[in-house]
């Protein structure tokens, strides 16, 4: 069965390389040097505010007039143009780039305040000290890798189980197997073993690519990711079995599997963190198995929390496996009619 699977370039690509492709794309965008973002800024005129614009944040370019600068901002060449004409400082900034616009406004406003203070000959009463703190909202690769890995495991298992079941039923393989003396459990176990092996290979591939090419920062107990992935795969296989038991054709199974997997990927925060999501969405996320696979993976891969911390999540996944498998067995059909 493994041979048959490995020889199918389409399904191999879809379940192994396709998610990896996402990892590479996301990794190239967010991974590696996650230092401060730089902004293109246009400046015109003379004065203390213009002179003080910090070059660590801004790539600055001089323009001849405010009108010319505003035109280029409108074209998308820069996030803003700053002009100083005597006492007057003017900023025109892009409406579409909220972060860039607000950054420029904030910086220019503080520079104007400072210039006013200097002009009045005052001294600073208050000073501001800042320092970065390591927080739970993970950056770059440490967020992306567990997210994409849990998503890859879920689509691989759901589609694999659903399509295998439907194809075997529609083409008469199930009927044929029923007429052999081999126990059904043995056949099912062989197929499950193939899926588990693929999921482990997937995990190894993700960790390797993330580590070697995108500076993924793994925490101490990261190897617990493998048993976590095994439990997660079982849960999603059982969901796939349920989909395959309900659907009559391969097309229907595909559609149904997509309906399950795609909304779940977003609601569980595998692509985009749920930190800013509305409350109801976070409640929904708590009942989705993908959320628990993702949390368990994060705990061991990047948050250094140890295997024990994953147990509540794994318990939910095991519960899902039990419920969905039981439902799939009830709805199981040997043939089409």
């Amino acid at each position, binding site marked *: *069965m493994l*041979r*048959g*699977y490995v*020889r*199918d370039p389409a399904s191999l690509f879809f379940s192994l390389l396709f998610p990896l492709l996402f990892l590479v794309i996301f990794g190239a965008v967010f991974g590696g040097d996650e230092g401060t973002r730089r902004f293109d800024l246009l400046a015109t005129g003379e004065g203390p505010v213009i002179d003080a614009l910090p070059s660590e944040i801004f790539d600055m370019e001089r323009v001849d007039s405010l009108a010319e600068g505003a035109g280029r901002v409108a074209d998308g060449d820069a996030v803003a143009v700053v002009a100083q004409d005597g006492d007057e400082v003017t900023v025109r900034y892009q409406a579409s780039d909220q972060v860039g616009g607000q950054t420029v406004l904030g910086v220019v406003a503080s520079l104007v305040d400072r210039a006013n203070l200097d002009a009045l000959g005052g001294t600073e009463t208050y000073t501001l000290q800042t320092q970065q703190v390591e927080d739970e909202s993970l950056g770059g690769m440490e967020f992306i890798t567990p997210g994409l890995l849990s998503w890859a495991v879920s689509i691989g298992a759901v589609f694999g189980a659903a399509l295998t079941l439907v*194809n075997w039923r529609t*083409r*008469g*393989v199930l*009927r*044929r*197997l*029923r*007429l*052999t*003396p*081999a126990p059904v459990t043995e*056949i099912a176990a062989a197929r499950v073993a193939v899926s588990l092996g693929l999921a482990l290979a997937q995990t190894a591939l993700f960790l390797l690519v993330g580590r070697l090419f995108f500076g993924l920062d793994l925490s101490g107990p990261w190897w617990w990711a493998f048993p976590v992935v095994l439990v997660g795969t079982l849960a999603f296989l059982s969901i796939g079995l349920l989909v395959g038991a309900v659907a009559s054709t391969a097309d229907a199974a595909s559609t149904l599997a997509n309906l399950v997997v795609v909304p779940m990927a977003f609601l569980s925060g595998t692509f985009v963190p749920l930190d800013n999501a509305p409350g109801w969405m976070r409640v929904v996320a708590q009942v989705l198995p993908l959320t628990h696979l993702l949390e368990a993976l994060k705990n061991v891969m990047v948050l250094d929390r140890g295997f024990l911390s994953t147990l509540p999540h794994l318990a939910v996944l095991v519960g899902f496996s039990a419920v969905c498998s039981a439902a799939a067995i009830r709805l199981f059909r*040997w*043939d089409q009619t």
Partner: protein
Amino acid sequence: MERADTTPDHGPTVEVIDLHKRYGDVRAVDGVSFHVAPGEIFGLLGPNGAGKTTVLEIIEGLRQPDSGQARLLDQPVWPRNQALLPRIGVQLQASAFFDRLTAREQLETFASLYGAPRRRVDEALADVGLTDSARVRVEKLSGGQAQRLALACAFVHDPDIVFLDEPSAGLDPQSRQQLWHVIRALAAGGRTVVMSTHYMEEAEALCDRVAIMDAGQVLALDAPARLVRHLDVPVLVSVPAECMTADSARRLDGAERVEGDGATTTIATRQRARVLHQLDQRHLLDVAEVTGASLEDVFLSLTGRRYHDVSGHR
């Protein structure tokens, strides 16, 4: 294709007693009974929807009959009887293969599911003439090769009884001949073969006995030749049209019906000696051809319908 061990079974290998099965309002099987002796090739012949496949599925233990009983090797098949499974082989549709395996791997998989020894794989491949295609993936096999591989999967574990559902459906004449050859060899090796078919000529050429089915019932059951012989239908004598026109043929003594299509004049008669004697007097015996009745005529006389019209094939 000798059997490894030949169990001396007494009585029929297959025993079907008054089977009934209905789907909603349709009586798919409506009182079917027959026996099959060891080593026999037994055919269920009928148009699509006659109930052949349902009968086979009940005998294989895939379906429960509403009433009646099927027994294989002196054991009931329902409730599902695991002990029977190694002793029967079933050829399902040629699509019932695992994805992307080669012909040999496919057979190896089935052999291992039955716990059959590895050497049987090569023997079965040779039996169906696929030794040269052993490393070809199933998707790349021709229709005839795929059907023969499906057949090999049905007997790789040395069963006593082999069930074939429309084994040559959709095959070209040459592939069909090859398949028939394999099936005859199976029976010659001592196995019992039970098959369904909607091809009249397949039933005539292959089966020792045939049950003609229509609308869920067995209309007649006997050796094909005997079914035909008992039929009171005319034989057809045909001569080239340039030797004898339809008009002059109608004046022959004993001609019941004459048809001419410009190339051939065909005379239907129940007195073939008298007609042939008259042709001999005109020195036409060398160019005359005599065609006897076939199972098609049997079907026509049993149902009042032409088989061509109802079979939906050919």
